[in-house]
């Protein structure tokens, strides 16, 4: 069974249809890259998966369970949306770290807030918090940030901030980790260190969806590639199919810009 099934998603901003009948599936442990020019709907699609936007029609299933259905959305309470949202993690282009918390506090915050709601929290408070801290330290170590755990975001480089943001998203153990142009705010040198981390996650079989303008990276790391244009999925296939032998003229034109 596919970990993610997206069926007939469409989305309007006012009268403009920005997503048009989007369908795709993603298998567990695979990486899907979404490419396309600015304004093609890539980011909106990713935001729909994380419920930052609500699709006007369509269905989303995670591991066979419906997490979003435009027909029953009206009856969905905030707490259900919050729960369903946790299937996905999202790493933003502009990091969006919390400036008043250190790197490790950024990673721990959401887990701590969750833990406080568990019934036996008061009894095992110290042990639970210790566990959360340990996990956060492990994640930051994996991101190569063991020396930076107690720094505030403004004391970190863009690449380091983005790696903290990746650790923060991983802390909630999402089924699918989404990246929204994770290196677009970084210079080429810092881009490299972030891409390396994402590649490392792919090797560890993390299921990921990556919206990116880094074509060679997308070709290298992905199992599937989607090319979007004007709200449509124009190409959907393996990297070799999409990059090596695109079906549409528009795709060839787009990829031509990168050679």
């Amino acid at each position, binding site marked *: 069974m596919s970990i993610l099934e997206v069926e007939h998603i469409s989305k309007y901003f006012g009268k403009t249809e920005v997503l048009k009948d989007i369908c795709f599936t993603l298998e567990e442990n695979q990486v899907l890259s979404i490419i396309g020019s600015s304004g093609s709907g890539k980011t909106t699609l990713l935001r729909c998966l*994380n*419920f*930052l936007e609500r699709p006007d029609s369509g269905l989303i299933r995670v591991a066979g369970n419906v997490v979003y259905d435009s027909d029953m959305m009206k009856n969905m309470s*905030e707490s259900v949306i*919050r*729960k369903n*949202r*946790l299937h*996905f*993690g*999202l790493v*933003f282009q*502009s990091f*969006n*770290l*919390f*400036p*008043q918390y250190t790197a490790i506090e950024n990673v721990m*915050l*959401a887990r701590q*807030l*969750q833990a406080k709601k568990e019934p036996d929290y008061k009894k095992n408070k110290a042990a639970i918090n210790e566990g959360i801290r340990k996990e956060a330290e492990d994640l930051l170590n994996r991101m190569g940030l063991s020396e930076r755990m107690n720094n*505030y*975001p*403004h004391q970190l480089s863009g690449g380091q901030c983005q790696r903290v943001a990746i650790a*923060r*998203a991983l802390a*909630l153990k999402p089924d699918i980790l989404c990246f929204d142009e994770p290196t677009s705010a970084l210079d080429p040198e810092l881009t490299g260190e972030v891409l390396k981390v994402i590649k490392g996650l792919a090797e560890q079989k993390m299921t990921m969806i990556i919206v990116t303008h880094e074509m060679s990276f997308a070709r290298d790391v992905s199992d599937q590639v989607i090319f979007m244009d004007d709200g449509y999925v124009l190409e959907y296939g393996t990297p070799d199919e999409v990059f090596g032998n695109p079906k549409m003229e528009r795709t060839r034109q787009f990829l031509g810009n990168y050679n």
Partner: protein
Amino acid sequence: METFMEQLPIVVDSLNVGFLQTLKLFFVTLIGALPLGLIISFGTRSKIAPIRIILKLFIWVIRGTPLMIQLLIIYYFPGLVWKNPIWGGGEIGRFTAASVAFIINYACYFSEIFRGGIISIPVGQDEAGLVLGMTGRQIFFKVKLLQMIKRILPPISNEILTLVKDTSLARIIALQEIIWAGQAFMKGSQGISGAIWPLFFTAVYYLVCNGLLTLLLGGIEKKLEYFR
């Protein structure tokens, strides 16, 4: 006519009593107006249009008219129009009426500062909190509140210093604050009359008080410099 050195302790005692009333009004207003201002600022961003409109109108009226008129109306209206002087006649009644007027007035100013603070926080902070499964309440208290306080501290400090001086307006309903106490020696009180120097002394009380507040608020601003 007594000498200055004989008058001094009498005047200082009297000014101290007045200044205590000034400080009481200052703290009561602050304690009431800060949370009320936060509630009003949420209201002005409510999804329910009537709440929004009523609050905007209310803020417009309160900010658009002198605090002195508001003091007079709040103090005298119940007695003169309803024939029901709810505040009572004494100093306690005057203090209560003044507190109500000041809290309402300052809450409106604070609410606009809070509103500015809330909307100045990038939407990315909300979105980051949401995708981490936080509730709206958690995002406000754990993520946005401290960033907001950092941003609004300079304008809030301004209002707080102004409030210290504005308390003297309560003199219009004969609240016995420090200027009232100083002015008494011009008219004649406790054997001293025609003396203007006690008024200069009242100014020193304000200056010292605002000096200390400036240091305190500056200290808080410094404390929040650890993040950007």
